[in-house]
C-alpha cells in the first residue's frame, strides 16, 4: 500500500516534470510578452503591458516577412494538397507488387534534409533560368516562387500521408457502386470520393500551411533576396530581440489553442451525433417500424458558428482579449514612470556606493589585495554584462554611451541588470569584504 502511494507520487512528479519541460518555455515566453521591460524576461517584472503587440505590428520587416509567409503558405497549400491527393490516389491504383517501391519513392522527400531540398531547388531553377536566358527579375529567381516550389516537394508528401490514412478507410465498393449506377469516373470522383476525403483535405491543408509557415531549412536557401517570418526572426536573433517576438509567439499559441478547442468540440459533437444515429437505427430495428424522429446528424452538418459551444468559446476568447488589452494599456504610463524613478534611485544608490568605494580605495592605496579586489568586480561585471546583453538591441548604444560617460554610468546599468545575479552578489560581498 505504501509503495503504491510512493509510486503514484513518482508518477505524479514525472508527469509534472514532463509537462513543465513541454510547456515551461512556452509559458515563460508568453509571460515575457506582457512585461514592459525592453528585453524578454519575467524578472524583474516592470509593468504589465501590451505595448509589445503594438511594436510587433509596427515592425515593418517582421510584417513583410509575415505577409510573405502567408502568401507562401497559401501557395504551398494550393500545390501540395492536390499533389498529395494525386499521389495517394495513385497508391491505391498501382499493383500490389509495385506499391512498396512507389511508396518509398514518393515519401523520400521527407527523408531528404531540408537544406538539400533548398539548395537543389535553388540550383535547379537557376540553371533552368539561365538556360532560357531569363532575366533576374523573372520567376526563376523569385524567392517566393522558389520557396513555394521547394517547400511543396516535401510538404506534398506530408499531405499524401494524410490522404493515405483516410483512403485506407474508404470502401472501394462505393466507387464501383457509383460506376454501376451510371456515373462517369469524374462524377464518381466528385460525388463519392471527394466528399469522403473532405475532412482529410482540411487536415492536409492545415498541416501543409503550418509546415510551410514554420519552415526554415529549405526557405533560407530558396527565399533569395526576399524574407519570410522565419528568416526575419532568425536574423533578429542574430542582432538582438525584444519582447515583440514573444508577443508574436503568444498570438500563435493562442490561435493554436483556440483552433484545438474548437476542433475538439466539433469532434465530440460528431461522435455524439453518430451515437444518437446508431441508437435511432437500433430502435427502428427493434420496433420494426418506420420511425420519423428528427434527424440527429443534422446538428453536425450545421456550420461551426451555429454551434453554441463553439460560439461560447469564441466569446470567452474575445472577452479575454479585451480584458488583457484594457489591463495592458490602463495605467501603463504611470507604472512606467514609477519604474523609471525606481531605476534612477537605484542608479543613484549605486553611484554613491561606487563613490564611497573609490574613497576607500584612495584611503588605502598601499594595500595590494585591496587594489586587486577593487579591480575584480569591475572586470567581472563587465564580463557578465557583455554576455547578458547579447540580445539587447540597446546594448551597442549603451556601450558607446558608457564609454563616453565613463565607468560609473556603465556600472549603474550593469548593477541594475545584474540585480538578481548571484554572481553579482558574490562580487559585491567580495568587494565589501575588501572594504
Amino acid at each position, binding site marked *: 500500500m505504501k509503495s503504491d502511494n510512493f509510486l503514484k507520487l513518482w508518477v505524479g512528479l514525472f508527469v509534472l516534470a514532463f509537462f513543465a519541460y513541454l510547456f515551461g518555455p512556452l509559458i515563460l515566453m508568453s509571460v515575457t510578452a506582457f512585461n514592459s521591460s525592453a528585453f524578454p524576461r519575467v524578472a524583474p517584472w516592470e509593468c504589465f503591458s501590451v505595448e509589445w503587440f503594438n511594436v510587433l505590428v509596427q515592425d515593418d520587416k517582421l510584417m513583410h516577412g509575415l505577409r510573405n509567409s502567408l502568401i507562401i503558405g497559401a501557395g504551398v497549400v494550393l500545390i501540395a494538397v492536390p499533389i498529395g491527393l494525386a499521389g495517394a490516389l495513385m497508391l491505391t491504383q498501382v499493383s500490389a507488387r509495385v506499391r512498396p517501391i512507389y511508396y518509398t519513392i514518393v515519401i523520400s522527400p521527407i527523408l531528404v534534409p531540408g537544406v538539400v531540398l533548398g539548395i537543389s531547388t535553388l540550383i535547379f531553377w537557376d540553371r533552368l533560368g539561365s538556360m532560357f536566358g531569363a532575366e533576374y527579375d523573372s520567376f526563376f529567381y523569385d524567392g517566393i516562387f522558389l520557396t513555394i516550389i521547394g517547400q511543396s516537394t516535401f510538404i506534398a508528401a506530408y499531405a499524401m500521408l494524410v490522404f493515405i490514412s483516410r483512403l485506407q478507410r474508404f470502401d472501394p465498393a462505393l466507387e464501383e*457502386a457509383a*460506376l*454501376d*449506377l451510371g*456515373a462517369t469516373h469524374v462524377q464518381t470522383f466528385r*460525388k*463519392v470520393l471527394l466528399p469522403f476525403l473532405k475532412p482529410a483535405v482540411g487536415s492536409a491543408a492545415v498541416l501543409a500551411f503550418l509546415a510551410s509557415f514554420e519552415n526554415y531549412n529549405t526557405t533560407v536557401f530558396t527565399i533569395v533576396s526576399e524574407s519570410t517570418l522565419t528568416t526575419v526572426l532568425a536574423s533578429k536573433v542574430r542582432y538582438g530581440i525584444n519582447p515583440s517576438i514573444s508577443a508574436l509567439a503568444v498570438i500563435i499559441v493562442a490561435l493554436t489553442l483556440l483552433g484545438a478547442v474548437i476542433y475538439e468540440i466539433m469532434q465530440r459533437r460528431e461522435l455524439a451525433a453518430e451515437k444518437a444515429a446508431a441508437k435511432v437505427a437500433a430502435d*427502428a430495428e427493434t420496433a420494426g417500424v418506420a420511425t420519423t424522429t428528427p434527424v440527429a446528424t443534422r446538428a453536425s452538418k450545421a456550420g461551426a458558428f451555429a454551434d453554441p459551444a463553439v460560439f461560447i468559446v469564441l466569446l470567452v476568447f474575445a472577452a479575454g482579449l479585451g480584458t488583457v488589452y484594457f489591463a495592458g494599456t490602463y495605467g501603463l504610463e504611470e507604472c512606467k514612470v514609477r519604474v523609471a524613478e525606481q531605476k534612477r534611485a537605484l542608479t543613484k544608490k549605486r553611484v554613491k556606493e561606487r563613490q564611497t568605494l573609490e574613497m576607500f580605495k584612495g584611503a588605502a592605496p598601499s594595500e595590494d589585495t585591496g587594489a586587486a579586489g577593487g579591480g575584480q568586480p569591475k572586470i567581472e561585471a563587465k564580463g557578465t554584462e557583455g554576455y547578458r546583453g547579447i540580445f539587447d538591441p540597446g546594448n551597442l548604444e549603451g556601450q558607446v554611451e558608457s564609454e563616453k560617460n565613463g565607468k560609473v554610468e556603465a556600472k549603474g546599468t550593469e548593477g541594475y541588470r545584474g540585480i538578481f545575479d548571484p554572481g553579482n552578489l558574490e562580487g559585491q560581498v567580495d568587494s565589501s569584504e575588501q572594504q
Partner: protein
Amino acid sequence: MSANVELDDVWIRFGDFVAARDVNITIEGGEFFSFLGPSGCGKTTILRAVSGFLAPSQGHVRIGGQDMAGIGPNKRPTALIFQNLALFPLMTVWENISFSLEVRGAGKAERRKKADELLELIALPGQGDKFVNELSGGQRQRVAIARALAAEPKVLLLDEPLSALDLKLRQHMRTELRSIQQQVGITFIYITHDQGEALTMSDHVAVMSAGVIEQVGGGTNVYDHPESAFVASFVGENNLFSGKVSKVSADRATVETNVGNLTAATPKRSNGAKLKRGDDAYVFIRPESLKFANGSNSFDNTIKARIVQQEFEGNLWQVFLDAAQGKHIKMSMVNDGQSLGYDSGSEVALGFPSELAVALPRGPLAAE
C-alpha cells in the same frame, strides 16, 4: 423492360487460378435466376463479369443479345446490389436512391419524385431525409434495392444481399424481393450460398462448385434429380452410401455398399461419363424418402439399422440410426399425430423405392 443474359464459354482467370471454368448459361429475360454455391466458388466473380467490373479471360457475356466486351459498368443495362450494399454514407436516403438520376443530370424535383415513388415501393415512405446509418439493417437492404431499381436496369444483380440479416428478417425479405421482382418484371440474377433462399425464390438455379457450373435447373429439378455428387451433397440433406457398381440397366444402377446392395435411379444427363459396372459410385437417399419397412409395405431397397436417437421437432421427427459398420443414417418423418412406434435402441429395417434414390459417379462432395 427486361433482357436475357448469356454466358457463352466464359472463363475467368486470376493468374494461374481459374475462378470460373467454361461457364455456359442462358438466363431468360424477366426470370429470377440464382447462382448457388459454397463460399469462394466464384459466384461474385461471375456477377462482376456480368456487371462489367472484370472482363472474362475468354468467352462472351451478352445482355439482350448484345456482346458486352469493352462496355464499362456505367454503360451496361445492369445494376448491382453489392454484398455489403455499398450505400453512400454521406448522402441521405433519397439522395442515395436518386444517385443514378443525378449523374444523368436530372433536376432535383424529378429526382425527389422518383425517390419518393421508390420509397413507396420498398415500404419506407417518408424516410427519404434520413441518413443511411439511421436505418436498420433490413431498411438499408431495401434502400439498396431501391437505389438499383432507380437506374431502371434491364438486369438486376444481387450479391448475397440478405446474408447480413437475421433469420426472421431474411425470410421476410425473401418474399419481399420476390414480389418486387414480379412487380418490376426485370431479370434478377441472385447469388447466395443459402440453398433455402435459392430454392424458394428462383425460377432457375445454377449450382456452382470451384468455378464450375455443376447443374442448372428449376428448384425441384436440382433437389430431386441431382446430376453430380456435389449437387446431391450440397443441396438439401442426403444420406450417402459409397460402393462399386455391380449392375447397370437403362435407368437404374445397383451399387454394392457396406449396408448391402442398393439400387437407385441414374440421371438422364449426368456430369461426366455414364456409370459402368465396376465404377466407384455413390448412392444418395434423402432423409424424408426413408421409411420403416414392416409387413405392410415392400421396398426394392432395405437397410438394417439401430435407432440411436429421436428428436421431436414439432412437425417432424428426426431419427438418427446406425447401420452396419457404424454408418450413420438420418431419417425424417412427418409428425402425423401417431407415436413413432419404436424406442431408441430398437433394431429396425429401413426401406426406400429405387426411384427416390440416385446413383452418381464418385466425385467431390460439398464440405460439411
